[in-house]
């Protein structure tokens, strides 16, 4: 039945965006277990976790497409539609990177040198922390919409983004230390493997970079 009142409302992107960031975070979180398995050389377990990561990445992808589909240009929203779509895109990239990292490690059955294993795990955990803080910030979207992107709620979110930035800086430091540790032992390893280890470190770091970009996108929304 056509009803004018019911037809005013487009479908709100807020809850779907919060759900999307949750899936993206859970996808990155799996990397910790995956890496532990990889370090221990338990490739069956690693394969199992990799399947979960892939599943979550697909789920995030599907939701991303759905959200885009329901955001036609005729919608009027308190914040620009483009900014929300950009936010969605960087959220999605967190999940993508988790998939890339796990795919590369599993595909090459890469052995992580024991000298850097502990540092590597520490680095991954911190990157996942960044994704978690990104999730926490995005989960304030509904509150931001309620408050109309003004006033006290804005400071609540701002301080969450500051914390996110701090975590991202941590990951940068950890990444530098990890590279240095790898550099110290690389002459004992196969050159091709070393190349790919650097690549994996870089990709893992991008998870935190994407999380930070989620914060930047949110900040843009706050300034409207």
């Amino acid at each position, binding site marked *: 039945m056509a009803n004018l009142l019911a037809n005013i*409302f487009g479908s709100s992107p807020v809850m779907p965006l919060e759900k999307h960031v949750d899936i993206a975070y859970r996808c990155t979180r799996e990397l910790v277990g995956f890496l532990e398995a990889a370090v221990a050389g338990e490739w069956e377990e690693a394969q199992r976790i990799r399947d979960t990561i892939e599943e979550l990445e697909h789920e995030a992808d599907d939701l991303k497409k759905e959200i885009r589909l329901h955001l036609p240009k005729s919608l*009027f929203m308190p914040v620009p539609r483009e900014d929300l779509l950009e936010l969605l895109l960087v959220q999605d990239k967190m999940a993508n990177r988790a998939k890339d990292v796990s795919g590369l490690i599993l595909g090459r059955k890469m052995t992580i040198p024991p000298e850097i294993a502990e540092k590597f795990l520490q680095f991954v955990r911190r990157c996942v922390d960044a994704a978690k803080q990104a999730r926490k910030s995005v989960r304030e979207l509904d*509150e931001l919409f309620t408050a109309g992107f003004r*006033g*006290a709620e804005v400071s609540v979110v701002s301080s969450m983004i500051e914390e996110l930035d701090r975590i991202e800086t941590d990951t940068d430091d950890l990444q530098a230390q990890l590279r240095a540790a790898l550099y110290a032992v690389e002459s004992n390893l196969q050159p091709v493997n070393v190349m790919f280890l650097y690549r994996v470190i870089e990709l893992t770091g991008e998870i935190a970079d994407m999380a930070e970009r989620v914060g930047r996108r949110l900040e843009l929304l706050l300034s409207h």
Partner: protein
Amino acid sequence: MEAQLVYIGLAAVFGIFMAWGIGANDVANAMATSVGSKALTIKQAIMVAAVFEFAGAVLAGGEVTSTIRQGIVDIDDMEGTPELLVFGMLASLLAAATWLLIASRKGWPVSTTHSIVGAIVGFAAVGIGVEAVHWNKVGTIVLSWVISPLTAGFIAYLIFTSVQILILRQEDPLAKAKRYVPVYIFFAAFTITLVTILKGLSHVGLDLSTANSYLLATAIALGVAVVGGIAVHRIQPMRKRDKKQHFYTVERVFGVLMIVTACAMAFAHGSNDVANAIGPLAAVVAVSQSGLVGSQSPLPVWVLVLGGIGIVIGLATYGRHVIATVGQKITQLTPSRGFAAELAAATTIVIASGTGLPISTTHTLVGAVLGVGMARGIEAIDLRIVGRIFASWLITVPAGALFAIVFFYILKAVLPS
């Protein structure tokens, strides 16, 4: 005499049918806002609607009814042929009802008000003569169709902006909500009661002086605000659902306010829309009882009561499903938003009712919701709605007129004069 009884009987049946249709469809829009925001359950909404629609129809429905009954057609022109007015009004009721049935079958959004006004203008202009229509009055009515959504939108914008500044952007929105919501409750109750007392009550034989009207309205509004204030202060924060700013609990505080604005909305709707069903009936009754077209005969209260009953039956039989359906689709309208829209729409509608202008409740409410949206209160608004409203005007008025003309000639040929 027998012919007259037939006319009254027919008009009563058509009128109740129209009232049923209004109760089944239009009321749902007025109440769905409160159900969608979970301020009321469907059962509560139906009870609120039944009581306040009825009260609105009987206490404040007189002015619009008299516009429909004798404001659009120049009845002084028809003194020699009172039966033409009777046929015309019967035809208008049938036309509007038929058109509403067809349109809702096809899923087109239509307005009862526009159908009935179109129908009356149609039968008068074609069946009697172009000069038989009070074109000035019709012009005013059409203008009010444009003005009412705009006014409601503007008021809603102001109300919601005040909510943002006073409550939502503050450090402690919950404390602020508990402080200001009773004030909003007072204003909601005051506006509706005052307009009703000033403009409507004379039709049920109550006439108060202006000073007394203000006093009575203040007293009633204070009473409502105190009860609301007590309910508001009992609300405790829910740790599980709340984040730092307690917006979940803040919305529950606004939920109390929304119960009041839901009553106001039902009242306003009853006061304006009952006329669509019983205005023509009142005209038929007046002519048939006196045999004259005279505009002096008072509006019998039983006619208003009949309209009120029809609306309540429509609501109870079919309207509940529509409320549920629409309610599910408008969950973005949380109580802090929904109350602003309802209060703005109800105020606009009650003022229109007091002035005797038949307007569309739904369009006014849509205007109010857009107003909240313009104040950046709604997550996603589909702006194509504005085009749909214009389309519904362009189609409904001529369609109502066309059906009325056809039915007018059929009735004229079939019924005894």
